[in-house]
Each structure stands twice: as C-alpha cells, then as structure tokens.
C-alpha cells in the first residue's frame, strides 16, 4: 500500500488547486461540480469501522492522484509560459539565462548599416 498521508491534507490540497483553477473563470470554486462531487465523496467515505477499508483507501488514492494531476498541470503550464511559450529566444536572452552578457562595443561593431 502506498503511503498517502491524511485524507484531510489531500482534501485541503484539492481545494487549493480548485481555487487556482477557478481563478481563470472568476467564479467561486464552491459553485463548481468538481467541488460538490469531492465534498460528497469525501463525506460518504469518512466513517468506517474497518481497520483497513479497501474502498476508502482506493478513494483516497484517486483523490491523491487527482491532486497530483492538477498540481503538475499548473506547474507545467507556469514553466511552459516562462520558458517555452514565446518561441525562440534572442541571443541576449539566451546569454542571460546562463548568467552571461553580450560584449558591448561603444562605437558599434563597424558593419551595421
């Protein structure tokens, strides 16, 4: 069995990701179908007297997987926009990425028009 931590933690993480997702549309995240479904699912599987309830573990695994999906997509998009979203970089920008600067010649290089 994979170690997942506490379900409450996963739930809070999911709510945080839903808030990010719904910042796009500007609507409160509590109005979304995803929020209602998650709350319902977490409530329904909250109480169990079994020591090891497979159904509960399965649900928690799915929730953790979904949390991983939402979080990774958000971070992937952020990285994509930062580094890959704008097409090819100019020579100055490329040099800046690795902490270099292009040489500066006060009178120009002599061959510009």
């Amino acid at each position, binding site marked *: 069995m994979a170690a997942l931590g506490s379900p409450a933690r996963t739930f809070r993480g999911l709510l945080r990701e839903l808030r990010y997702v719904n910042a*796009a549309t500007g609507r409160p995240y509590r109005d979304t179908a995803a929020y209602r*479904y998650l709350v319902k699912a977490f409530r329904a599987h909250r109480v169990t007297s079994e020591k090891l309830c497979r159904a509960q573990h399965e649900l928690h695994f799915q929730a*953790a997987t979904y949390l991983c999906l939402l979080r990774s997509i958000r971070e992937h998009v952020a990285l994509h926009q930062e580094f890959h979203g704008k097409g090819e970089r100019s020579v100055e920008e490329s040099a800046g990425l690795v902490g270099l600067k292009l040489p500066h010649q006060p009178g120009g290089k002599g061959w510009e028009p």
Partner: protein
Amino acid sequence: MWRSCLRLRDGGRRLLNRAPGGRTASVGPGLSPQSPARAYAPPTERKRFYQNVSITQGEGGFEINLDHRKLKTPQAKLFTVPSEALAIAVATEWDSQQDTIKFYTMHLTTLCNTSLDNPTQRNKDQLIRATVKFLDTDTICYRVEEPETLVELQKNEWDPIIEWAEKRYGVEIGSSTSIMGPSVPAKTREVLVSHLASYNMWALQGIEFVVAQLKSMVLTLGLIDLRLTVEQAVLLSRLEEEYQIQKWGNIEWAHDYELQELRARTAAGTLFVHLCSESTTVKHKLLQE
C-alpha cells in the same frame, strides 16, 4: 562523361528538392514582417469560445456541454464517458482554460478521445500485446555496472518493486546489466496478458498510455494496484536522471519541465484507468442501537 552526367542529374535533383522546402519554411505560420526569419512561433491555441461547461447524463453515459453545444471528439463522434467522476474531471479541464484552450494540458480529454475514436484501430489483443512488449525493455530491469553509487541506488530503489510484482503475480521478472536486457520467461508474459485481459478497452488504453510514459510495465502495475503513488512511480522511472541532477545540478526549464509533464501525464493515465475500471457498489451499514 557518363559519370559526370549522373552527378549533374543528381545535383540537379538535390537542388530541385531543396527549393520547395526552402519556400515552405519561409511562409510558415506565425511569421510577422518585423520578426526575424528564424523565430518559431508555437502552434496557435484556440480562443476559449464558451462560457459555461456543464454535464448531462445521456444514454451512452455522461456528456459534456460547452454552453449549449455538445462536446465532440476529433472524429466528430459524441463525447460520452462511462463514469461521472471522469466526466466531472474532463469538465473541470475545459472550465479551467483561461482565454485560450491549451490542448497540451488536457490529458484526460485526450485519453477519452483516444478511447472513443480509437485512431490506431487496434483491437484488445493488439493493445495488450503492445503493452506487454514494454516488459522486455522495462526501465527498472536495466541496471548499470558503474558508478558504484548509482548501482547501489538502483538496487535499493528498484529491487523491492520487482520483488513485490513477482510476489503479487507469482511470476519471475529479474533484472540484468547486459545491453540485451533481462530474459523474461514466456510464462510471465502469459500471466500478465491474461491479467490485462480482465480490463476493458478504456482502462487498457489508459494502461498503455501510462506504460509508455513511465517506460515500465512493473511501475505501472504498482500504480494500478495502489502499491505506488504517482510521485513515487515517476521518481523511480527517472531514477538515473535524479541521480545526475544531484550530482550536476538541476535545470528548471529542462528537468523540472519534464518532471511536471511526466507527472501530469502519469497521474492522468492512472486516474483514467481507475475511473474506467471501477464498479461502484454502495453497502449501507446496518444501524445498531
């Protein structure tokens, strides 16, 4: 004379071939007059043309509505999914698109489209065979002989998973340092083929997707059987890369970018498999006084 003729004709053909190539490159999309000729603009993303995303329950399953239009697959079939949770997750994907629709972030939608359209026209047997084929070149069965620390790392991290899989399915997998990879007995393949045959087509599409991402059948089995979390499976799949990162440093726009993309794809595939293969039964507990 004869030879030089040949050469001339050859050279001429090469010139002819090059000409159209050069032309298409110069009129490629996204070239504006002020931008330099080398600039490459990524393919345009579609504008978000809808306001509300909703779900309706139809005959074949759950459907997605964008405003009042029904979502369709690339082959113009009606987009229907078997489970409510999956429909909600897909709807959330569409709803989370800001201004433009970024198709490269919508992995669950993509997986559903693949399952609905089946663009490669494969049947169940072919799909299973394509999946099990990865076992011959499974990432975690290939070991290095040097450096010493990496050998030890691979042994410590990968061996328990292989042992678990061998015990769980009662098969023999093993590992190897040879370039030819481990020799997996035919019996193992039979067992896994018959195990995979118990999944439906949708789940199998997801399984093949995850296997292709992680480059490992064993790690995928670990995900399906809830033995590994997505984060753990991705870490194990990238073990050598992580080792190199620790030694030489992390590059955000290459390593982190790939890590997040791999995690997103693996998580989407895993969730897809679980949501498509489960059958929910609700058993109410008897109330006791």
